[in-house]
């Protein structure tokens, strides 16, 4: 029987923080209850027509008539480094997972660690447990509080039902909360109304051993639309540098549903859920106390989970609406290096309205409750092994038209009260200048924080064992180097300065350039403590603790460019380029241990070039070149690779495609993982064929 200690840490939160939050909410309650309606909608808004006239026709197709709370807006006006991956981009690129689709975004580093793990980060600080990117699927956060990052192998849905993926690099702190330090990825699925009828697909290949899925959507009465889906895939092992097969194959079965109901009074309701279950393989090397002081095992672990989400939206008037969202999410792995179960319950409310002629205000409140249960392992353990925590948050944003159709200012801030660091404030200011129909310039200053995770506070990880009787360790006992969490670990901070320019010199060409400078403080570092014998009375080893602290500072700067060019009706090019430079300034006592910190493991340059050609006879030829610079601190070379897709539509409802991936060499490495040394594997060239039928 395992002893579980359930300790409530509610008292840890700052009293002042909660007090301010309560007072703020009380004032709002009072104001809205007694004041007259602030949403004086003007029925005819000439400015709106002008705005639409300036959009490209592809953009017009994405505009929502009923605007949603986080405001659908023409991309050219957004004061942020935003890139949208459309469903067409996903289909033509031949990618089989959300993580792979992200490679086409400038400013994102996507690297495969092994066949089932990725490191995905924006503007630096990569790692399997990279922690500065917020990822949402239909408003549900998929970030895990265990190490404040994302388990990318668990994030999936029917790719054909993804409407678009919005990627915002840079701090998105105001609307989405803490941990969106370097960016936000918002995965939006199609409404049930847009996925009516059936879709079935299946295929097989060299790395994709076999995959298939079905979706069916139907109408219930006049106002309710439904869909359900199921999908399965089985992926092959990758290879080691030697060319031998690795042990990291995986397979996952997943299913889900979505229901949308549209009322006549401006109300709408969405309900959705997913469940999944998979087997994931990996090879783990763990330190051990006896010769040969490390052991390597191939193992498979089970990963599963599910979620349920409900959202109610009400359109109050032309310029005002509100939304209330509630979701539950469960994630479970068993047994990997540890067994882990995380439950999350989250509630969010948002309201948007105009204030006078020139201002639009969006504000919201949120509450999240998380509970985890960990089965500690020999190498990695958490103390306590179970913890409940919650976060209260509020945000407000004011969009001010300073000069009509010329200058727009957005001021906002998020307030958060969490169990680790108390009250946090993340303000930002953004300015957009639109001197001409075809140009716009924007600039932003923001503060963002990355709050501590369980890993920083409570973990104990055996990193390595130094054998006895060697020059580094002359004593008789082996020395176990152990990373230890610290309750006083503070939030990491960022002050970001960004500027961007968008231009559409002609209908067929658009360019988007962003430059940024990030000033980081209180970055996670480690320092050695005093070694001590363990267990104290009859020691089997000496423990050398490596504690986590916030001693580092860093500056990063870079440039991101996205271009979209259509030389003719049937040919389209899309290119992305990023440049990044990271300058670390370590604190005096801190040490950058190669197995715990991989900050300089970001490539300086990345290029992505996609060409999509529509050929006669219903054929499509798509090419995707990628170049990624080397990672010298990880000993990973630069690489250039090519994906090719040939698609054919013999009939309107049938699509046959053949996709070759990573074609320019037999195999190439992309990353070396830190922590929990999973043996890195290399990405092989591969090919698969797929048939998709719509009925």
């Amino acid at each position: 029987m395992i002893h579980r200690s359930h300790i409530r840490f509610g008292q840890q939160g700052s009293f002042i923080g909660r007090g301010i939050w309560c007072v703020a909410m009380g004032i709002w309650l009072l104001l809205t209850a007694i004041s007259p309606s602030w949403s004086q909608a003007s029925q005819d808004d000439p400015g709106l027509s002008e705005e639409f006239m300036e959009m490209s026709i592809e953009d017009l197709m994405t505009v929502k008539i009923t605007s949603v709370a986080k405001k659908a807006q023409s991309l050219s006006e957004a004061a942020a480094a935003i890139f949208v991956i459309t469903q067409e981009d996903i289909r033509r690129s031949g990618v089989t997972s959300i993580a792979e689709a992200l490679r086409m975004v400038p400013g994102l580093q996507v690297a495969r660690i092994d066949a089932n793990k990725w490191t995905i980060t924006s503007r630096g600080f990569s790692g399997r447990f990279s922690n500065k990117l917020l990822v949402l699927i239909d408003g549900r956060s998929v970030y895990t509080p265990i190490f404040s990052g994302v388990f990318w192998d668990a994030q999936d849905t029917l790719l054909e039902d993804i409407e678009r993926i919005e990627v915002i690099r840079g701090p998105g702190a105001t609307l989405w909360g803490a941990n969106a330090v370097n960016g936000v990825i918002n995965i939006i699925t199609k409404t049930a109304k847009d996925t009516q009828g059936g879709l079935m697909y299946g295929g097989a290949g060299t790395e994709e051993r076999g995959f298939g899925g079905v979706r069916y959507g139907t109408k219930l009465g006049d106002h309710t639309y439904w869909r359900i889906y199921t999908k399965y895939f089985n992926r092959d092992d990758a290879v080691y540098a030697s060319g031998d097969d690795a042990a990291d194959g995986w397979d996952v079965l997943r299913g889900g549903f979505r229901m949308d109901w549209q009322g006549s009074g401006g109300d709408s309701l969405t309900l959705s859920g997913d469940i999944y279950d998979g087997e994931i393989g990996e090879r783990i090397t763990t330190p051990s106390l006896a010769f040969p002081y490390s052991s390597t095992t191939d193992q498979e672990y089970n990963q599963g989970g599910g979620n349920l989400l409900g959202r109610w939206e009400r359109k109050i008037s032309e310029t005002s609406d509100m939304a209330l969202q509630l979701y539950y999410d469960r994630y479970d792995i068993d047994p990997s290096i540890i067994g882990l179960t995380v439950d999350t319950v989250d509630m969010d409310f948002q309201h948007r309205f105009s204030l006078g002629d020139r201002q639009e205000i969006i504000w919201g409140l949120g509450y999240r409750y998380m509970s985890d249960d960990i089965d500690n392992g020999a190498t990695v353990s958490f103390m306590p092994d179970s913890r409940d925590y919650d976060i209260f948050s509020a945000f407000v944003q004011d969009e001010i038209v300073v000069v009509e159709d010329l200058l727009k200012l957005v001021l906002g801030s998020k307030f958060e009260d969490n169990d680790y660091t108390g009250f946090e404030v993340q303000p930002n200011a953004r300015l957009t200048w639109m001197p001409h129909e075809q140009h716009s310039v924007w600039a932003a200053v923001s503060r963002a924080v990355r709050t501590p995770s369980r890993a920083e506070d409570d973990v104990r990880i055996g990193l390595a064992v130094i054998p006895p009787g060697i020059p580094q360790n002359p004593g008789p006992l082996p020395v176990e180097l152990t990373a230890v969490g610290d309750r006083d670990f503070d939030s990491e901070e960022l002050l970001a300065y960004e500027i961007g320019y968008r231009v559409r010199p002609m209908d067929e060409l658009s360019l988007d350039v962003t430059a940024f400078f990030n000033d980081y403080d209180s970055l996670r570092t480690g320092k050695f403590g005093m070694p001590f014998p363990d267990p104290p009375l009859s020691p089997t080893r000496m423990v050398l603790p490596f504690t986590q602290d916030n001693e580092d500072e860093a500056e990063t700067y870079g440039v991101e460019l996205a271009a979209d060019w259509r030389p003719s009706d049937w040919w389209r090019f899309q290119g992305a380029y990023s440049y990044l430079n990271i300058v670390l300034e370590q604190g005096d006592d801190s040490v950058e241990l190669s197995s715990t910190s991989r900050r300089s493991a970001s490539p300086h340059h990345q290029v992505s070039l996609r060409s999509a050609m529509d050929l006669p006879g219903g054929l499509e030829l798509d090419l995707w070149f990628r170049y990624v610079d080397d990672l010298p601190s990880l000993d990973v070379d630069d690489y250039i690779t090519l994906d090719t897709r040939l698609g054919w539509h013999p009939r309107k409802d049938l699509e046959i495609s053949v996709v070759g991936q990573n074609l320019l060499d037999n195999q190439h490495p992309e990353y070396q993982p830190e922590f929990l040394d999973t043996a890195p594997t290399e990405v092989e060239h591969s090919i698969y064929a797929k048939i998709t039928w719509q009925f």
Partner: protein
Amino acid sequence: MMMKPCRLVLIILVWSIICVGQMARGEPPVSREYALKAAFLYNFAKFVEWPKEAFPDESTPIAICIVGDDPFGIALEAVKGRAVRGRKTVIKRGVKPDELTTCHICFVSRSEEENLAESLAELRDCHALTVSDVEGFAQRGGVIGLVTVEDGIHLEINVDAAERAGVTVSSRLLKLAKIIRGDTGGREN
């Protein structure tokens, strides 16, 4: 002191209800929808080619005609003064059947739903791009149908009707639309 979760939920719910009661219930989003449709009309002019006979000389403007009641209000004003491939655009409202020959784009408003077959028959020889948001417009022989779904506007393009009218629709536009074939010629219902 930490607020209990259920108490918090209750407060948010109660207060949301108060807000809802206070706010004015708005009209359905007419102006936003038609502002969007106006932009579509403007864009269609960019992606459609008319036969040479449709324009007597270089300075002939592109005529956008509204057949029936005008649902756009001032939304279409934003088109004025915008040039498409060197030609100005001009808007004509309340156009009578005998004036239709001078039109390049004819938007048939919902008020004409009853007389749809008649209007379509009259437009056949006029090199006009016929657009409407009447249900099933493209199926009944119109060139472009604007289908409003709750979250946006979808396009249906009847390629046979386009061919009959003598207009060429760019493949960039075709790609975004659901293609309809078959031409009832306005004779059947």
